């Protein structure tokens, strides 16, 4: 599902670099990103989709796949399954809950079992019947899409593959919606992604007045466009237009984090720093940040029995809860709030970075910032963790 552009020239926003050689360049705020400025024509196709073709295309897709898109429900938007003829509501900045539940449901059945001793298979777990039919997610923001590639690192290791997550991810086509007006709490550009970023997307839609421009990024995206009947290619300057809009959107980002020192400082050094008490004091150890976060993935496995039959399910879990690390003996290595809060930030901004060397485990969507009941701000914590010299606690 990764983009397969031919990278011929890579330009960064502000710096003059050797235009012949592609390389990774640190952005002006310290995170590594690849800026794609100009791609040769044979690398990427751009289609134009008029409003009337949009609705028709969605109908056609809906005939063979599950279609999901953002819909307003009460006061906010969330991804829901679209009914026949139902159009996604793109009048939103981002959904309240992240779309991670499309690939990774909050409660997922893993196995069935029966405890009926007359059944020859009693007490033996049987794989549950799953439905991995194709689904298309329309209008996912680039930050949430990139989150999938970060989460995939966890569920797809050389030794063990999480069959549920991977199968569902493989059957999902991600059609992104570029952000023209990022929120004031979005810091995607310094978290390895951006409002027009194409990682993990199969198609990227750029909304204009009366039409969409659609960048076809992968074979899956190409196949989807065919099914939908979206075949009209945009003019030769479409890519340039997109680049202009992208730069303008990136210019509207007002929130940044600095992470250039995170790689070099040792984990134990950051672990022992004195500000954790101040950072963790207000935390109420609810699960809001972890459940809303598109890159958080921890889960709990439970058996639920009713009469003689039962299921083994997995549910989202949160490292914020004291039960998360409780041993059977009663010993709890993270029994104190400070230890749990520190664990969350260390995992997202340091341990993950060290383990995979693919950037931090955060895409800057800003949900935890906006919905933390006590306003613990990951941007502030990152700033503290990134400091290279000893500083007083208060800032």
């Amino acid at each position, binding site marked *: 599902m990764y983009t397969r552009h031919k990278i011929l020239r890579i330009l960064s926003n502000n710096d003059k670099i050797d235009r012949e050689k592609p390389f990774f360049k640190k952005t002006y705020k310290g995170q590594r990103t690849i800026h794609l400025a100009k791609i040769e024509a044979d690398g990427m196709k751009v289609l134009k989709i008029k409003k009337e073709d949009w609705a028709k295309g969605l109908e056609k897709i809906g005939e063979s796949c599950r279609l999901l898109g953002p819909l307003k429900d009460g006061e906010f938007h969330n991804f829901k399954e679209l009914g026949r003829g139902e159009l996604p509501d793109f009048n939103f900045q981002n959904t309240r809950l992240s779309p991670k539940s499309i690939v990774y449901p909050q409660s997922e059945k893993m196995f069935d079992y029966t405890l009926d001793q007359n059944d020859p298979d009693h007490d033996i777990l049987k794989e549950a019947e799953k439905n991995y039919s194709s689904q298309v997610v329309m209008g996912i923001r680039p930050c949430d899409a990139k989150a999938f590639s970060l989460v995939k690192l966890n569920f797809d290791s050389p030794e063990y593959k999480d069959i549920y997550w991977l199968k569902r991810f493989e059957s999902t086509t991600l059609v992104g919606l570029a952000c023209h007006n990022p929120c004031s709490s979005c810091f995607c550009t310094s978290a390895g992604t951006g409002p027009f970023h194409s990682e993990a997307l199969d198609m990227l839609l750029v909304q204009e007045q009366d039409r969409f421009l659609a960048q076809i990024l992968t074979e899956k995206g190409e196949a989807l466009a065919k099914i939908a009947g979206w075949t009209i290619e945009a003019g030769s300057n479409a890519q340039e237009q997109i680049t202009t809009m992208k730069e303008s959107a990136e210019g509207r980002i007002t929130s940044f984090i600095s992470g250039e020192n995170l790689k070099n400082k040792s984990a134990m050094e950051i672990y022992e720093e004195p500000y954790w008490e101040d950072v963790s004091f207000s935390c*109420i150890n*609810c699960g809001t940040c972890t459940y809303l976060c598109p890159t958080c993935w921890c889960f709990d496995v439970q058996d639920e029995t009713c009469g003689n039959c039962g299921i083994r399910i997995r549910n989202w879990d949160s490292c914020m809860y004291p039960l998360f690390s409780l041993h059977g003996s009663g010993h709890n290595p993270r029994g104190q709030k400070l230890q749990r809060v520190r664990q969350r930030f260390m995992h997202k901004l340091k341990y993950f970075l060290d383990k995979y060397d693919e950037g931090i485990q955060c895409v800057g969507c800003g949900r935890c910032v906006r919905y933390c009941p*006590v*306003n613990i*701000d990951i941007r502030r914590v990152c700033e503290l963790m990134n400091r290279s010299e000893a500083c007083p606690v208060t800032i």
Partner: protein
Amino acid sequence: MLEYTEKIREISKQLLKDCKVDMVIGFRKGTIPMMNEPTFIKSANEVGQLVWDSNCGINLANYLTNRKENIGIIAKGCDSRNICVHLVENKIKREQLHIIGVPCKGMIDKRKIAALFEKEILKVEENGEKIVVEGDGTVKVFEKKDVLQENCAICIHRNPVIYDDLVGDLVEEQKDVDRYEDVRKIEAMAPDQKWSHFDDLLKDCIRCYACRNACPLCYCPTCFVDESRPQWVGKSIDPTDTRTFHFLRAYHCAGRCTDCGACERACPVGIKVRTFTKKLEKDVKELFNFEAGLDPDVRPPLDVYKTQDPEDFIK
């Protein structure tokens, strides 16, 4: 209420200088509009961080449970009632506390204001009784009384019931307030109507437990939803389990809940959690004529037996 900030800082500074307390728990300015972050100050020269405005809806009594230090705590009406409940329930000792009482005129409801705008709110400023909100490319001005949190609009205990210092003059308590209009509306529904009302209310619940954790009353070392021997409640988002959690939590708070609204404020998906606790508050008031947290020497009704307790429901 912005003028309270100076007084809060002054009192806190003196307390810390005189070593009367080890720390002062209050709010510091938040990083996004309409939010402040609870914080603790341990040194007199850091009191400049403390602020007070109409975004201080979080119940600071939540941070007192089982602490051993001497604490200066900033408490508005509902917070001070929760401190009384803590005293009754032995979660903290009176001698440990220096209560900085705040006569409160209500906190603004960030959801109510957000719902009046299409896009993001960029800035919110308080100007006396007016709230100035910038968003959607315009600036709108609201009367504070029109955008109060729901529990604040019907509050009848705005003044702290227990305090060592006051940061301002006591405010007039609201009179003739119908606290249970919403509860009666639901009580009047037919059973299947009620069922679908509650189903609808709880459909978005993601079992994050923000409501439980924001509540000062929910301090059980192991909450009933986390027990495994026996396991009372499933951990999935199955609607039966979700209902069990909310209903049972409301019952555990019956006779103790002060309607501070912290639960509703904390919910990330905007569930009106107070629907359940208000019903039980009404029942306790009607059956036992009791309101929680008004007197640290009076035990709640579900804790004591009196011979004249109503028993017409016992068949």
